[in-house]
């Protein structure tokens, strides 16, 4: 009888814990899985991307580039971004060694001067190539920079509220992220000022499953102060291509690796 009670209690406990974690996983688990889903899918990846940048006065600019990414150890990542449009930035190449917990190393190749310039490790919340996206939106914000709190669980989303540990280092007071419960992709994020006013919004408009990984293929970043926005579209994405580590080197800055840049 005692054994049975123990068994039942144990089963209930196990089952209950299982239920509990399926219903409301730990907030850190959610943000880590969301981070994995949006920035670390696969061992490596290749994608073509296009940005349509529209400023508050309706003027439009375009950026088109191919992005290569490779995951390393302990959350490290390498990125190589090769621009193909517009004509005056064509041939520009951007290389990033992402170091979670430290400064990223960044280089820029300017073909007109044949110059490999190193970029000072500065504020990551500044415009990425003239768009409304920040560098940090492209390569991911370090999870340990914010306190995270699960504020709501809807049928589709976990809503996470993140508050910066060092409020002086960023322009927002907090941001809320809507994480899809099925794919773990962050589908929307809204950035607030001290007074709670939302001034910046990211939305994923389309998700496709590619090589087994749910991938945001269309997204939009809105600047609600100025009224401008940037639309980003990813195409020809592939994962787990086996891109070697040495592709992310000075050689590729000066001579972009055609084998890995071309579509299949």
């Amino acid at each position, binding site marked *: 009888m005692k054994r049975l009670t123990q068994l039942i209690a144990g089963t209930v406990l196990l089952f209950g814990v299982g239920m509990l974690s399926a219903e409301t996983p730990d907030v850190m688990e959610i943000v880590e899985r969301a981070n994995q889903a949006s920035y670390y899918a696969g061992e490596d990846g290749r994608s073509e991307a296009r940005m349509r940048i529209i400023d508050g006065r309706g003027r439009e600019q375009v950026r088109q580039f191919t992005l290569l990414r490779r995951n390393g150890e302990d959350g490290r990542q390498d990125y190589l971004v090769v621009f193909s449009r*517009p004509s005056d930035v064509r041939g520009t190449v951007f290389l990033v060694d992402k170091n979670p917990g430290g400064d990223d190393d960044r280089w820029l190749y300017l073909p007109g001067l044949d110059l490999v310039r190193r970029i000072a*490790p500065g504020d990551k919340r*500044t415009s990425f190539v*003239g768009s409304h996206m920040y560098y940090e939106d492209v390569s991911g914000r370090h999870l340990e920079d914010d306190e995270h709190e699960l504020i709501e669980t809807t049928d589709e989303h976990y809503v996470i509220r993140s508050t910066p540990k060092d409020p002086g280092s960023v322009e927002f007071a907090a941001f809320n992220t809507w994480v899809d419960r099925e794919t773990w992709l962050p589908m929307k994020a809204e950035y607030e000022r001290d007074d709670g006013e939302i001034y910046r919004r990211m939305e994923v408009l389309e998700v496709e499953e590619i090589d087994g990984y749910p991938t945001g293929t269309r997204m939009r970043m809105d600047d609600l102060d100025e009224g401008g926005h940037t639309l980003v579209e990813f195409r020809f994405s592939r994962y787990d291509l086996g891109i070697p580590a040495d592709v992310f080197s000075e050689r590729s800055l000066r001579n972009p690796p055609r084998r890995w840049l071309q579509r299949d």
Partner: protein
Amino acid sequence: MLKFSKQTMLMAALLAMAVPGQADDWDDDPWDDDPWDDDVSAFEWYGFIEGAAGHRLQSNPVIGDDFSLGELRLQLEGRYEGDVATWRMKLDGIADGVTDELDAELREAMVSFPFGDRTDVRLGRQVLTWGTGDLVFLNDLFPKDWESFLIGRDDDYLKGTSDAARISWYGEHINLETVITPLFEPDRYPDGQRLSYFDPMQGDIVGAPPRLRGVKPPRTAENAELALRLHGRAGAQEWALYGYRGFFPQPSAFDPESGQFTFAPMNAIGGSLRGPLAGGLYNLETSYYDSRDNRDGDNPLLPNSEIRFLAGFEREMVTNFTLGAQYYLEWLQDYSALRRNWPMDPATLPDERRHLATVRLTWRMMRDNLIVSLMNFYSPSDDDYFIRPTVQYRHTDQLQFNAGINLFGGSDASTFYGQFEENSSVFARLRYSF
């Protein structure tokens, strides 16, 4: 006056071309009708048309024209990707209102291809750059076009072209770059036509005519230029060692027999480091210039051997505001021999050590569509300066505007920046890219 009206017409023509450039080829449903679905064509071409004008801030007593820059430039760039090799060509056509000439300049004509797994080769006319300085060059002895920079052309034109073979070998940890330039190519230096300069032989500032023309060394295999760079990374730190055999890139030697300026033979070795430091980036670079025909340093008509040293630091101080600072030293190695044998006015004898400090402030605004920069060179030993405020505005992907001031000054007409005092100018450029 005639030139002025011609420039006005050129600018008007440029503006007329530029205005319809904002054509919107995408409708509200983005991307659908756009060519990115199509296979990328193996051949592509693009380019720009640019109007540029530069006017002196004061009249120059030795140059009649108050315009130092006035031109309409068309650049066409073509690129063909073959199965193995990539072919590239960049050709400029220039209607020059200062010289009253139509001119063509081949900026690039090259083929690049891999050779085995670890080697990339680039053959033909190309632009070459290495080293760590910001507008200060030690081990980068590839040709510079100082004239273009000092009159206000785009920064790209600071680098001249080389007809060269570049062979880049990439190893596991060490990489070796070899550049062979069969025919020595000097800098393009102020020659008196657009910019006056100090002539040590005459002891005075001079302008053209006659234009300063350095006599290039004979075209022999012996006189080919060889430049080497051994480089790698240790974590976030970058290191490089450099070697060079060729000539001083400026006509700093004088041949008394022919009465001509020439380029003295030199060897150079050096090294550099670059990496993150204190939330910013540091760079250190040094080089030794061996004046091969003047190893004792007692010939004042040939350059002295030199040690050059550079230390720099750059950091984003607040969001979108970057500060860069450099200290640079040129140290003549046989100074007492030079002083003993100096035949000209002792007042024009250079200092043993030339110290130079640079400060660059950069503000980026409007998502980098507006960039304001202030570059400042100051030499406490020469007591001269060069201040260069610039503004860059990107109106659209097609239309970009640049303007700036080149302000030179110093207490002595014989020093590097002091000699250019009367070349101080304001410049503006409008570029339409396609």
